[in-house]
């Protein structure tokens, strides 16, 4: 491939990259701040649900930005690249959940129309205990998630603007703080709309460029199928002792693929920061269309990510296998790295710049194990033999791998920040609303005045930002594990009880509460025991996965997929217990009857300004 052989010396371009990045980051941050200032709010209805006047298409873009986190933007393509065909669990798990959300939850929750998910749980199950359980789950899920986002912000700053990680995290906190504290959901929504366009442009530009270079079509979704990269990757993979890229069930067995995919789907549909976005639209019809817009916008990235993953895998294998390893060198700021070279047609050694750059951040490490001066990517226990590449750098490094202009590299960095900040903002709002609205105001100051409620919400969001920032600067080792945890818990707790609350009129307090407790406990205990080495710091996990060595699930039930089992248990317990106890009171049955019908989502008790509801729909 010529783009790999024509490696120009881009030492000078690095400073250009920094200048471009600095420029893009400054401009986008100014826009976010301006929107935050413009949409500052004066009452809690606007703070929590943006006054329920967000048009469906804007809500779709905001949901997409909210939902696509640093993990989707920065990590997912890298994961898929490593997993090959089995990487589909993330693609289909995360997008498939929107089908469940759109048909089973979103329209009915919008009709119910209060501020938070615990609001619905408390009303539907006429129980304040259920409210507390739901609010605590929402806070836990959101805090673990937001910590990872702040970490993402830190990485991007550290790599592209070459500041300390903590400085990057603090800057990110300040920016999120301004638009979230001033504007609440309203500020967050419109900022997220802008952030969506930033992040999608940042993802698509290098993917389109790469597709144009490697295939005959610059539309990646087409080049993916029509190009011959798949065959080439499969060949190189087999040469190096890896299983072929398009071969399924090489990393997870079929049962695990099924369970993980299902847990991610139900988890997506049950995540509180996504559900709450559907409270912000004008009516039930807008909630349905906004689910469509959200998935459309998400699919722009999600159908490109597997293409980027395969192209990047090809580029890495093709560039690094057999490259020359140089002597240990020192960079200007005294970081040691090992330069690698590719020999071009004229027999000259050309440095592979991006490998050197990322070695300086410690995210690529090279070790010439057999001292032959040649880099080998042979399969050793599923990893490359002589080079370690952190999965998280793949998207950020792709423009450099493909030798794109410095401004493209800068825009990718800006997109990574947009992805992390937009998700962080949505999560912080859920933490704030659960703490302020569901726990504090509800139990301690039920008669608080409107300005007082707003003040409490703002104090809580500042508190949440400080906690998130702390985890961003001093991350506990288990953030990666905890993301699986968040999805599993959402799948095993919120999804079944909201679903049954709408579709099973006979479901009552006893069934739902017990179901939720059994689902959460089972899932949490299984994950903690299987991952106790990471989560609790033990030397060995306390438990090996179940069913190991059985014929249908030879590698054992993976903790990422256990949420699907927790969900099933929740369902069974809830249905059995509810049929053994007394039916819910009549007014609750009326509530169920009313959420099933779209008309009247602006009931008087919702106390919202009717003029806000006249927003247009597609």
């Amino acid at each position, binding site marked *: 491939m010529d783009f790999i052989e024509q490696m120009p010396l881009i030492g000078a371009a690095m400073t250009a990259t920094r200048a471009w990045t600095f420029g893009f980051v400054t401009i986008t941050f100014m826009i976010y701040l301006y929107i935050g200032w413009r949409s500052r709010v004066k009452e809690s209805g606007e703070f929590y649900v943006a006054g329920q006047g967000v048009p469906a298409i804007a809500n779709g873009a905001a949901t997409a930005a909210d939902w696509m986190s640093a993990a989707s933007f920065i990590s997912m393509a890298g994961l898929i690249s490593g997993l090959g065909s089995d990487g589909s669990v993330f693609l289909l798990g995360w997008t498939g959940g929107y089908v469940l959300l759109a048909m089973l939850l979103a329209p009915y929750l919008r009709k119910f129309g209060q501020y938070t998910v615990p609001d619905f749980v408390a009303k539907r199950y006429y129980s304040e205990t259920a409210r507390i359980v739901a609010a605590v789950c929402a806070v836990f899920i959101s805090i673990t998630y937001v910590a990872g986002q702040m970490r993402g912000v830190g990485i991007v700053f550290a790599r592209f603007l070459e500041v300390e990680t903590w400085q990057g995290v603090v800057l990110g906190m300040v920016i999120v703080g301004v638009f979230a504290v001033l504007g609440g959901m309203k500020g967050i929504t419109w900022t997220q709309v802008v952030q969506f366009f930033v992040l999608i442009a940042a993802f698509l530009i290098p993917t389109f460029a790469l597709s144009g270079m490697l295939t005959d079509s610059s539309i990646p*979704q087409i080049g993916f*199928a029509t190009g011959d990269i798949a065959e080439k990757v499969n060949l190189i993979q087999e040469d190096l002792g890896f299983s072929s890229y398009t071969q399924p069930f090489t990393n997870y067995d079929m049962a695990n693929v099924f369970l993980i995919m299902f847990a991610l789907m139900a988890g997506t549909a049950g995540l509180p920061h996504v559900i709450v976005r559907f409270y912000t639209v004008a009516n039930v019809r807008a909630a349905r269309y906004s689910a469509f817009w959200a998935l459309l916008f998400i699919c722009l990235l999600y159908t490109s990510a597997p293409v980027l993953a395969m192209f990047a895998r090809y580029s890495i294998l093709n560039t690094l296998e057999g490259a020359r390893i140089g002597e240990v060198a020192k960079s200007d700021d005294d970081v040691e790295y090992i330069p690698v070279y590719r020999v071009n047609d004229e027999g000259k050694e050309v440095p592979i710049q991006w490998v050197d750059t990322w070695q300086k951040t410690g995210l690529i490490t090279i070790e010439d194990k057999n001292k032959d001066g040649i880099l080998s990517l042979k399969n050793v226990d599923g990893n490359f033999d002589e080079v370690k590449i952190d999965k998280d750098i793949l998207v950020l490094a792709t423009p450099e791998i493909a030798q794109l202009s410095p401004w493209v590299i800068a825009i990718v960095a800006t997109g990574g920040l947009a992805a992390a900040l937009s998700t962080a903002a949505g999560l912080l709002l859920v933490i704030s609303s659960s703490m302020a609205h569901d726990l504090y105001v509800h139990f301690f100051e039920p008669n608080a005045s409107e300005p007082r409620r707003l003040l409490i919400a703002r104090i809580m969001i500042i508190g949440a930002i400080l906690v998130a920032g702390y985890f961003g600067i001093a991350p506990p080792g288990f953030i990666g594990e905890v993301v699986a945890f968040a999805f599993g818990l959402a799948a095993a707790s919120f999804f079944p009880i909201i679903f049954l609350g709408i579709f099973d009129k006979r479901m009552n307090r006893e069934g739902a509460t017990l179901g939720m407790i059994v689902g959460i406990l089972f899932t949490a205990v299984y994950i903690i025991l299987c991952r106790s080495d990471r989560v609790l710091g033990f030397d060995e996990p306390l438990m090996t996965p179940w069913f190991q060595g059985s014929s249908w699930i030879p590698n054992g039930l993976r903790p990422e997929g256990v949420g699907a089992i927790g969900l099933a248990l929740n369902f069974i317990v809830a249905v059995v217990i509810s049929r053994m106890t007394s039916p819910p009171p009549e007014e609750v049955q009326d509530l169920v*009857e009313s959420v099933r019908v779209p008309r009247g989502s602006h009931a008087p008790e919702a106390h919202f300004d009717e003029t806000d509801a006249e927003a247009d729909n597609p």
Partner: protein
Amino acid sequence: MSSSPPPSRPEPKVAYWQQNLMVIGVLLTIWAFVAFGCSIFFIEWLNQFQIGNLPLGFWFAQQGSMYVFLVLILVYALVMDYLDRKHDVKE
């Protein structure tokens, strides 16, 4: 569910709800067939066919299913618009 309510309570929209359930049932069956069928259970069988230069099962798992999801949600929103009008529960 279909027991006649006392006059003070709202009239349940039984027909509307049952048609809604049927729409959801049909669409989710397609959803499950594509997500779990084409992308997991039958992926190896489908991989003997090609779409362009890719094995068909692999393509479903990494591209095709997502296009189907998108169409399913759009169809749901459109059909529900029709049902809302037909049963006069539109806002």
